């Protein structure tokens, strides 16, 4: 889950009930206040009527503009003693003008005139206006509640997003980072202490891994260099045995076997050196290379070398396919892809070499899919084929990496397919 999403979620979870509580409290206080006001108004109205009646003035018309209504009934003393002098309640009241009953607030008041007779005054005011008001208030509260929630969460997220920008930049940078590439410096435009510390830590980690990578590369390079001389000595001594001594066929066979093993070692060493050189970027010069011409040459060569396997090789090539890269590296790429195909196709199988758009595609028969996870690793070998160094595809990968080419492998209906795409 993204940090921002998480914060938004938590914020909403906390704010939702809190704000709801606040809105509820506000609403009920308001309702209370409004009821109070209504009751006060009713009381004023009732007192007005009583004062008029006791003063002998004419009573107001039951419906003088307002929706208020009243009734005065004489009651006896016993009734008065049983009831409170002032009583409010809600009831359904018949309003003659409208000819229907409406919910209303009713005030019942007992009083005595100068003659000592008891009366009961019942005043009523319809509550639909109040209900309307409350409904409007409720609507607004809910709306404002939503608005407030959204605003708070929105603003928080925006502020967070702005403040976290250095973090996201660092993450993006880390995603793109691979040891040995030329992007050594972590971007550092930020004034926030925590982010600065994070950047420093990232920079230190990057420096460490660069150093380890460098040292590993140097080690392979040095080890390979140091091996050259002893290998030369060993080979030389075998040559001497073969050329300057009388050997029986058996002895000669043994020495030859030794030489072949030694040659493998030499080749392995050379390939490791080549890999190191590619990774250290020691092939800086670029030129326009026509891959079609290169492919045709290589194909002719491999057709001859692997003639006994009776492979069917199909080429679907355009007239030219020119790419800009180092010529030796282009040759490394093409050679290893082709050799791989020729080497691992079963006898009588077929190979197809195609250029489609800006992709080179090499397809060959195979009985089972290769392990895609380790396919391009050094010394990963699927078959124990004699003479295979297990470095061919690692070389392809290194060259592709160097020029940011896409290399893909797919296994489909009994065929391996390697595709290299130029951007």
């Amino acid at each position: 889950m993204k940090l921002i999403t998480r914060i938004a979620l938590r914020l909403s979870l906390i704010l939702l009930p809190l704000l709801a509580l606040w809105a509820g409290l506000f609403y009920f206080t308001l309702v209370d206040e409004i009821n109070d006001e209504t009751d006060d108004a009713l009381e004023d109205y009732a007192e007005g009527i009583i004062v008029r009646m006791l003063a002998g003035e004419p009573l107001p018309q039951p419906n003088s503009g307002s929706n208020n209504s009243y009734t005065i009934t004489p009651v006896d003393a016993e009734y008065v003693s049983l009831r409170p002098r002032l009583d409010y309640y809600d009831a359904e009241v018949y309003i003659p003008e409208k000819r229907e009953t409406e919910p209303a607030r009713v005030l019942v008041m007992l009083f005595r005139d100068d003659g000592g007779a008891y009366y009961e005054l019942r005043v009523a005011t319809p509550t639909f206006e109040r209900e309307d008001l409350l409904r409007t208030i409720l609507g607004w509260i809910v709306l404002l509640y939503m608005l407030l929630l959204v605003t708070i969460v929105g603003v928080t997220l925006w502020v967070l997003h702005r403040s976290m920008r250095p973090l996201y930049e660092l993450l993006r940078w880390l995603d793109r980072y691979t040891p040995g590439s030329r992007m050594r410096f972590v971007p550092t435009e930020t004034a926030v202490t925590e982010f600065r510390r994070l950047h420093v830590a990232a920079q230190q980690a990057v420096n460490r891994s660069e150093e380890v990578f460098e040292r590993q590369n140097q080690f392979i390079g040095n080890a390979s260099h140091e091996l050259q001389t002893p290998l030369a000595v060993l080979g030389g001594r075998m040559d001497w045995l073969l050329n300057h001594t009388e050997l029986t066929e058996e002895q000669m066979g043994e020495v030859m076997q030794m030489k072949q093993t030694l040659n493998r070692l030499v080749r392995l060493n050379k390939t490791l050196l080549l890999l190191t050189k590619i990774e250290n970027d020691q092939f800086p010069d670029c030129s326009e290379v026509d891959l079609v011409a290169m492919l045709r040459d290589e194909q002719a060569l491999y057709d001859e070398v692997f003639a006994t396997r009776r492979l069917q090789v199909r080429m679907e090539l355009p007239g030219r396919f020119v790419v800009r890269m180092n010529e030796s590296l282009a040759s490394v790429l093409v050679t290893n892809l082709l050799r791989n195909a020729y080497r691992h196709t079963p006898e009588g199988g077929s190979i197809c070499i195609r250029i489609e758009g800006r992709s080179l595609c090499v397809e060959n028969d195979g009985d089972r899919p290769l392990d895609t996870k380790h396919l391009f690793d050094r010394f990963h070998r699927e078959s124990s084929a004699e003479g295979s160094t297990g470095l061919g595809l690692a070389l392809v990968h290194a060259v592709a990496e160097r020029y940011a080419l896409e290399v893909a492998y797919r296994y489909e209906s009994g065929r391996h397919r390697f595709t290299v795409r130029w951007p």
Partner: protein
Amino acid sequence: MKILIVEDEPSLRELMTRTLVNEQHVVETASTYAEAESRLGSYAYDCVLLDIMLPDGNGLKLLESLKAQRRTERVIILSAKDALEDKVLGLELGADDYLPKPFHLMELSARIRSVARRGRDGQREFTWGNVSLDPEKRRVEVAGVELPLLRKEFDILAYFMQRPGYLVDKAVLAEAVWGDHVDQADNFQFVYAQMKNLRRKLSDAGATIEIRAVYGFGYKLLVPAARA
């Protein structure tokens, strides 16, 4: 030829010395930069085999000073660092050839021979028995008559003409003629096929030299004793 070997690794030095003495060269050795410098200061050589990574200095410096003195020694650089820059730099400084380690001893002899040949004007072709081969014009003559050869056949013959008497492993031959790419071939049928044609052409033309198979392992160019 008088040759100076500048190489710090004793075993390799001894081996190269033995091989070159065996080929009737006069060989002297130096194991350090200082020693090489003093030898070159006192004596003249036909050819210097120069290892560029010496314990007390860079061989390229020695080459530089040789060229600055306009010395006529032919220089072949031997380097464990199979680095293009070294090669380019060395050749720019005036080295005659560059041989990356590890190398075959017969390769070394062949390079010395061809460098020496380059020194003598006008004599580019190799001649053994009644066969002569001109690597630049890609022309082969047997007893004065041109022998037409296919490209690979010519390359094979050229390879052997530069290494007479040496046993050449078929894998090494394949790599030399077909390129590095053949290293994973599962058999050497393609070498046999070319070789068969070449040998037939040579014998049909009446050549006095012969490329002979040595058991199943490789081939050797046999030259009539009189000329060798």
